[in-house]
């Protein structure tokens, strides 16, 4: 960044040399202007009005125009401009509404020449005519523009914008009579000086004040405007219809805009607030600045290109009381630092990735972005590579997710079919293992089977079951030699080694039962050293989770019936009505699930049976089930880590007290909440409620106690039913009668949207099976879908 360039340019007799340099002013600057030969600069502000000459290495103070004993507000400048024809002539706009001209050729110390006090409010801008020595234009807060002839003592013409304050006025460079004025209300007006009564043309350029405008130095039809709405717009006014041709979005309100000399598409901007940098934009690339000067510590108030034909020197003044000369070669180029890669997820899980070409090698199917292809560039001199945007060609890749690969069907099915309580542990495990197997989730199935073996009564194991497990174990070879195995598994735990020893004994004692051991080994292998295919499956599951969280509109929603939303709103009190068949009922109170505690109590005695007792009752009390608890705990953590919180929670519930103490309360709670959240996203209200009910965490349990009240309105008078019971206080009628049985509907109420009759869901369903007319006898042909 700190490189300093030295450039020498020869321009029609004058030679400009210099480097990036700055000078400390005594006070904040409001505006700066350069004289025609680019050798001097004038700085004006509330408390400063000085002329500096620009030397090769530094700025040198030449003159202080702020002289006199008592300084009046006429010296408090909002704007300053140096005449481009006459080197001795300057004009300032004062905050008190005065327009002052200064003649440097005067002999006295006070160079003030003329004073015009015709404006009533602050003058925001003054501008000399580019070709006419005596003509000066001013724009003021009072909404008027005035044209002064310096040979006369007062204005020659006054232009009324008929709208709010004038923020900028600029004579057209090419068109003798035309000038542009920008206004605080967002309008830009074009005037013909010969017609002071009415503007030529007016258009709304910005939303909010237009702070600045600048005519293109070469192309007479182009006008750049900058506004408080953070935009720079380029307008083509050469035809009768004003057209916006370019628009650059900056990050802060635009205070000044200046076309870069000799560069057709470049312009410099600075901001009024917050952002202190000066930007040079290529208007064809509106998203990233071409160059950037970051030297100022406070907002930049004035920018000017040093010479009208030299694009490499930019002068700027700032509120931080410094005057800078910037070398264009020292500008930082944001495009070099920009990251040309982009990544985005689509609604359906597609992934788009755009990056530099080089990253993808020489693929044939790619698109490149080329700026020049559309806009040919002509340079005044020979094209300079450093003056162009570095072209980065990039490619866009879209990765589609395979249809169904991210389906969460297994999750839904398992959630619905798992049985978590109500039977013996062995049955539960068997059942769940079977479910998992049917859904091709073999590892899960194995885990269930194993849990059963670990914790359950040995007698319950049938060899059929074991065979099944083996058969499904993913094609792993049966390992007969235990020694081989222990070599193969490098990270075997002490526990396993212990087991292996035991098994050796078993082998010796009962070699007729090799199947069991082999099976055990397989499961151990999976638990501790995950085979590749399962790993893959789990990773996939991860992505799915992510995807599901992002997009709730996932396809997998299976319910017995989905009722319209309105059916749930404040219609029915659902209390103590076992006949209501739907999950809504369950949400409030789950009728068929018995308490978890009772279940655990009856199961606990089984604990004392160990794995070993399967094959060898001799070792009955040899290895208590608790022995495996740490392993099971690791297993649960493993599943939770993999994103299969379903498994973790299901096991937690099934094992109940056996494992609960091993895992700290907070982790459990975390698992429960994640699982419940997932279930609810799939609208598996029944399951989620069951899980809540079965959970042993008090904080989860209390989910069921929150917001259990349903408020209902009377169906006749539409007022809230305040009292208990089914008769409305106000209209003394029974609310929501069933059209079939003429009883009060206390559960789900379904009604026809056509005739608004309805009743018990089951009754209506049955009725409409046999008849297509409304049960109320209104003659409407109802339809139930």
């Amino acid at each position, binding site marked *: 960044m700190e490189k300093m360039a030295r450039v020498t340019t020869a321009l029609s007799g004058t030679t400009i040399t210099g480097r990036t340099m700055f000078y400390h002013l005594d006070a904040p600057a409001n505006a700066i202007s350069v004289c025609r030969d680019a050798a001097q600069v004038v700085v004006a502000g509330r408390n400063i009005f000085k002329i500096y000459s620009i030397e090769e290495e530094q700025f040198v103070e030449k003159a202080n125009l702020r002289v006199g004993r008592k300084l009046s507000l006429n010296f408090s400048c909002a704007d300053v401009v140096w005449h481009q024809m006459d080197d001795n002539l300057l004009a300032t706009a004062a905050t008190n509404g005065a327009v002052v001209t200064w003649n440097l050729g005067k002999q006295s110390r006070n160079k003030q020449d003329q004073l015009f006090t015709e404006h009533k409010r602050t003058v925001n801008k003054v501008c000399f005519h580019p070709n006419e020595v005596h003509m000066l234009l001013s724009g003021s807060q009072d909404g008027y523009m005035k044209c002064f002839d310096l040979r006369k003592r007062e204005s020659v013409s006054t232009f009324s914008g008929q709208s709010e304050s004038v923020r900028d006025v600029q004579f057209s460079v090419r068109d003798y009579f035309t000038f542009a004025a920008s206004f605080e209300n967002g309008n830009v007006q074009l005037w013909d000086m010969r017609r002071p009564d009415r503007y030529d043309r007016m258009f709304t350029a910005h939303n909010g004040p237009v702070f600045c405008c600048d005519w293109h130095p070469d192309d007479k039809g182009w006008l750049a405007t900058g506004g408080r709405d953070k935009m720079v717009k380029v307008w083509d006014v050469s035809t009768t219809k004003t057209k916006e041709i370019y628009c650059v979005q900056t990050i802060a*309100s635009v205070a000044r805009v200046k076309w870069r000399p000799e560069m057709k598409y470049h312009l410099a901007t600075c901001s009024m607030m917050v952002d*202190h940098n000066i930007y040079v934009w290529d208007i064809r690339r509106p998203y990233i600045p071409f160059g950037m000067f970051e030297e100022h510590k406070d907002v930049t108030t004035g920018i000017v290109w040093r010479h009208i034909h030299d694009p490499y020197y930019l002068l700027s003044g700032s509120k931080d009381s410094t005057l800078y000369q910037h070398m264009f070669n020292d500008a930082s180029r944001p495009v070099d630092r920009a990251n040309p890669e982009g990544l985005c997820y689509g609604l359906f899980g597609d992934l788009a990735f755009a990056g530099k070409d080089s990253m993808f090698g020489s693929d044939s199917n790619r698109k490149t972005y080329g700026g020049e292809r559309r806009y040919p560039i002509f340079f005044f001199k020979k094209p300079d590579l450093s003056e162009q945007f570095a072209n980065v060609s990039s490619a866009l890749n879209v990765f589609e997710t395979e249809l169904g690969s991210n389906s969460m069907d297994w999750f839904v099915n398992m959630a619905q079919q798992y049985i978590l309580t109500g039977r013996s542990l062995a049955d539960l495990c068997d059942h769940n293992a079977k479910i998992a197997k049917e859904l091709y989730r073999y590892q899960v199935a194995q885990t269930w089977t194993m849990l059963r073996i670990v914790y359950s009564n040995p007698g319950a194991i049938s060899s059929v079951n074991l065979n099944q497990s083996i058969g499904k174990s993913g094609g792993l070879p049966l390992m007969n030699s235990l020694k081989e195995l222990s070599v193969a598994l490098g990270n075997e735990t002490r526990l396993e080694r212990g087991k292996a020893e035991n098994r050796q004994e078993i082998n010796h004692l009962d070699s007729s039962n090799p199947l069991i051991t082999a099976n055990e080994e397989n499961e151990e292998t999976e638990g501790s050293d995950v085979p590749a295919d399962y790993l893959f499956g789990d990773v996939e599951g991860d992505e799915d989770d992510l995807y599901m969280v992002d997009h709730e509109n996932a396809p997998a929603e299976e319910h017995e019936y989905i009722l319209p939303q309105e059916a749930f709103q404040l219609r029915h009190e659902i209390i103590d009505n076992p006949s209501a068949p739907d999950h809504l009922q369950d949400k409030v109170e789950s009728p068929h699930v018995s308490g978890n505690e009772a279940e655990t109590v009856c199961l606990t005695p089984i604990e004392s049976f160990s794995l070993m007792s399967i094959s060898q009752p001799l070792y009955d009390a040899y290895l208590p089930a608790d022995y495996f608890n740490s392993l099971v705990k690791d297993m649960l953590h493993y599943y939770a880590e993999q994103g299969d919180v379903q498994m973790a929670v299901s096991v937690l519930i099934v094992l109940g007290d056996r494992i609960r103490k091993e895992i700290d309360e907070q982790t459990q709670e975390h698992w429960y909440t994640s699982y419940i959240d997932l279930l609810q996203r799939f609208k598996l209200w029944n399951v989620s409620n069951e899980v809540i009910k079965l959970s042993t965490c008090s904080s989860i349990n209390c989910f069921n106690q929150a917001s259990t009240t349903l408020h209902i309105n009377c169906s006749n008078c539409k007022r809230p039913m305040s009292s208990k019971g089914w008769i409305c206080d106000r209209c003394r009628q029974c609310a929501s009668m069933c059209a079939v049985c003429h009883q009060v509907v206390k559960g789900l109420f379904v009604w026809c949207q056509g005739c608004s009759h309805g009743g018990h869901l089951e009754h209506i369903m049955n009725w409409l099976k046999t008849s297509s007319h409304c049960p109320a006898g209104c003659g409407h042909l109802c339809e139930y879908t």
Partner: protein
Amino acid sequence: MFISTTCKENRHTKNSEKLPTDYMICTNCQKVLRKQDKDARVPPPTTTGPTAFIPEKEIAQDNPVDGHANLLFLEEYSTTGHLDNVTRIMGLHPQYLESFLRTQYYILRMDGPLPFEYRHYLAIMAAARHQCSHLVNTHVNELLQVGGDGEWLNGLEYVPQKLKNINEVNKILAHRPWLITKEHIKKLLKTGENSWSLAELVHAVVLLAHYHALASFVFGSGINPEMDQDRTAAISNFCLCDASNESNVEDVIFMCSSPGTSDSVSELEALMERMKRLQEENEEAEASQEEMATRFEKEKKESLLVATGAYEDELISTSYTSRYVDDPSFGYKDFARRGDDHLPTFRAQDYSWEDHGFSLVNRLYSDIGQLLDEKFRMVRNLTYNTMAIHEDVDTTMLRRAIWNYVHCMFGIRYDDYDYGEVNQLLERSLKVYIKTVTCYPERTTKRMYDSYWRQFKHSEKIHVNLLLMEARMQAELLYALRAITQYMT
């Protein structure tokens, strides 16, 4: 202060069973009462309707509610569930009301950096600085409605540290906004876990300024408490002496300040004459620069003399609102009086709302800039080209004089304004009124309201109040935003 022994009547009959009668008694009356050994019997207030200053029927006569206003009322009613007196009075200027309601709705109820209960609590804090129980009550209810912690209502000690921290800024902004510096901002933003984010701070500042200014409007227009609020609301903001014309301390001020009050018609004519002359005079000899500068100083100084000596010895404090106030003795101190620690005058050209304030506020709290901008613009350009009985009058000068005079009292100077105009256009009683309403609104009395511009319509006086309110809000915002800008650079 409540003196329940002296007043037993209660005009709110519907509430009379359950509450002891409490009226607010202004300091003047307290003095009078004390002198008379508290045996004076003050008659109960007789006015009903939205404001204590304007008889209800005159509002209707003055400005029959037009369709536009009705529509706005309806909208307001449907969003908030009630139509408060502030809205009804502002309904005299429906164009403005629309803009006002939109802004208020945005800062209170739309997406924003601050949680809803914070917003209402900030409103309470801001209104409490001026003991404006009307606004405090409104927002106590709102706070509870949005589920805020009722505990907070016990006072400032019960709120989160974060809210406590901003109280300092609230205090300064309410009374002496020129004292706010970037250090204050820094203190709020860099305090570890209780720190504010910039966006939150800007939201808070807008809220505070809005409610300080609104308190000015409430007192300036003599807004009555809401009838439908619960019992606390029954306490009027205004002392009974406003309604009855009992003699009190103020009389002295007004008698000497406006000698020619008897002839109010000629007063109006004279004002018109002066405006006309000033308009024509422009071409004439300009005042020298020094003179211009001294005129501002003079106006600043003169604002000191305007009035309020009689009050300074007494600290008014109502038990109900004071719990939200910390350091109640901190009040407006004249900008010009500080003498030794001379702070520089705020130059409007160096930090203006249009250029700087807007950009900053809009950047940190999106869209609010647009709304405020619209509101300021609306109030500054609002005119019906009438002055009392005259029509087709260009009141620009008058409006600008009022606006700049308010800013002058907060130390904001416009380079391009001749402060001599203020002296010519604003009569003394109006200056007293302006100063009271913007600087110590809680001291406003009906007498002050009545004493200026006797010929003018009530709606025109409400228009003045709108100008005062917005000018004050902008002044506060400018100081606060300038401090934030300085902090950011």
